[in-house]
């Protein structure tokens, strides 16, 4: 019983760490403008819309976070082998990973922006100075909990994978969860804030991103301020739920029904999430209604 209680405690802590990591990950990627929405930042100057938004085209968020978390995990492991205190090792290793992240961010901004010279997009040095440090800070808040969670899973729950391998697994999953949940909110709701609410961005509007703020010109920092209110927490909940339920079903039900307990629990969870999804889908159809009358739709169908 005591070991189960201990396992549940670790599971809750890991879930909490994952929530922090997910929320910070999405906010970081929106401040830096990474992933799919960045295609619009890239496209805008070609359409004649010069902007002062960061252009952190490192790669999609999953491989990028796979790299930051794996660096942190691998370096921390090497430090621990040489006898360093685990907490200290995790902090220093995360700092090194964030140094790498910062360098990749600046080279991406400089490289992409310099290649847009034909469209008269200048390089704004103050953007690099002010935004890079903020993305690095957020990335640290994302990477350190993520790698701590990996360490916790090994040290307290006896997962067989070494730390670096868990880093690659959860780093890519962190990026996948954060980009899937957070990208539409940054891409549609923030970049195209001037477009109608409650509808997708018409393809004809592509590239016409919002470049001016309430006062002055929009900075990428404003994007983090905006998305931290919904997309960030939503990404955090997404990744936190994934980690929590993944551990919870194993810790609690692994020994039930000759090993099938954890699997049955997983199937039940998937079905519950599926029902919730269907419920909100129908809720949206009822409450928001169709964009045009159904009769016109039947003709085209």
């Amino acid at each position, binding site marked *: 019983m005591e070991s189960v209680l201990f396992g549940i405690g670790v599971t809750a802590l890991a879930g909490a760490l994952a929530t922090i990591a997910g929320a910070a990950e999405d906010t970081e990627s929106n401040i830096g403008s990474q992933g*799919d*929405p960045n*295609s*619009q930042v890239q*496209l805008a100057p070609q359409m004649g819309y010069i902007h002062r938004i960061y252009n952190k085209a490192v790669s*999609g968020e*999953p491989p990028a976070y796979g790299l930051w978390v794996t660096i942190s995990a691998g370096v921390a492991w090497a430090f621990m082998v040489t006898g360093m205190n685990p907490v200290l090792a995790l902090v220093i290793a995360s700092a090194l990973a964030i140094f790498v992240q910062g360098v990749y961010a600046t080279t991406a901004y400089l490289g992409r922006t310099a290649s847009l010279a034909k469209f008269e997009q200048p390089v704004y040095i103050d953007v690099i100075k002010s935004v890079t440090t903020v993305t690095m800070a957020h990335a640290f808040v994302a990477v350190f909990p993520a790698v701590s969670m990996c360490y916790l899973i090994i040290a307290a729950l006896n*997962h*067989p994978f*070494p730390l670096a*391998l*868990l880093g*690659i*697994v959860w780093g890519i*999953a962190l*990026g*996948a*969860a954060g980009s899937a*949940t*957070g*990208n*539409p*909110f*940054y*891409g*549609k*709701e923030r*970049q195209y804030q001037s477009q109608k609410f*409650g*509808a*997708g*961005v*018409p*393809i004809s509007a592509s590239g016409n991103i919002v470049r001016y703020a309430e006062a002055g010109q929009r900075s990428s920092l404003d994007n983090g301020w905006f998305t931290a209110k*919904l*997309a960030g927490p*939503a990404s955090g909940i*997404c990744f936190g739920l*994934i980690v929590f*339920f*993944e551990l919870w079903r194993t810790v609690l039900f*692994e020994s039930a029904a000759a*090993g*099938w307990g*954890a*699997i049955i629990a*997983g199937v039940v969870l*998937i079905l519950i*999430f*599926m029902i919730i*999804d269907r419920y*909100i*889908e129908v809720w*949206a159809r009822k409450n*928001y209604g*169709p*964009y045009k009358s159904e009769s*016109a*739709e039947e003709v*085209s169908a």
Partner: protein
Amino acid sequence: MTAIEASSSGGEGINPVASVIAIVLILIAIAIAYFIAPPVAVSALIGVIVGGLLIGFGVHFVPVGGAPAAMGQSPGIATGVAMLAAGAGLAGLFGGAWAAANPEFGFAIVIASGAIGGGLLMAITCLMVNIVYIFGMGIPAASGKVAKDPITGDTQEAYKSQGTEGHGLPFISYVGGVIGGLLGGAGGTLIYYELLKLYSELLPSILSAEAAQVVPIAVSLAGIFAIGMFLVNAVLAAYNITGTIEGPHDPKFKRFPRAIIGCATASAVCGLFAILIVVV
């Protein structure tokens, strides 16, 4: 993933000559394993091939819209298909590896654990995508490729906002995502589990050490190979669908036989090399 979108269509239908050559390659790989490796290696190679084609098949179910999805211009999840599938598959690998570490659990439980791990990640991620679309952006889900959702029968056309190809995840895409996660998780775990069994059996004599001592090496090798082969298969499958797909109802889904043949062949060659490490 980045600012790049498909320019080559990829074409439909399978290439019969290439497919036959591919199947011959698979048979050659199995034959080599049969002649130079102990019998346990042949079953491991077959497991790896099956795992690879499960991954390739699973990627076709995952609804990924790429860059346009981030603007609500096309349905699906707004990220890269290979990496989203990798996220799900590796989360499955995490669960499967955990179950595999328990000696009491047999083959079925390990693979099922991996499958559920991947499916659970996709179930939660797809739900959060719809929550952000519906409650964050006020946009209902609508498919651009079919008039009616094949599962629920909901009409789609009227719920597409003007000037877009649809947005969000209709229920068929949601189910597709979960199935993709299940298949990816099962495939990745199958590769890992087969290689782990092989390495645990053969490494002690190679390194002249006790079985318990080499467990970390076996786990690491099997783990990094599983991740490597997962990425190879996921990227090949992503090439097959040229980056974006809505789910099992998308016309591009019909291209899956090519990916199955291709991923099985790639896995056969990669798997043969992975087996040779403990045989040479």
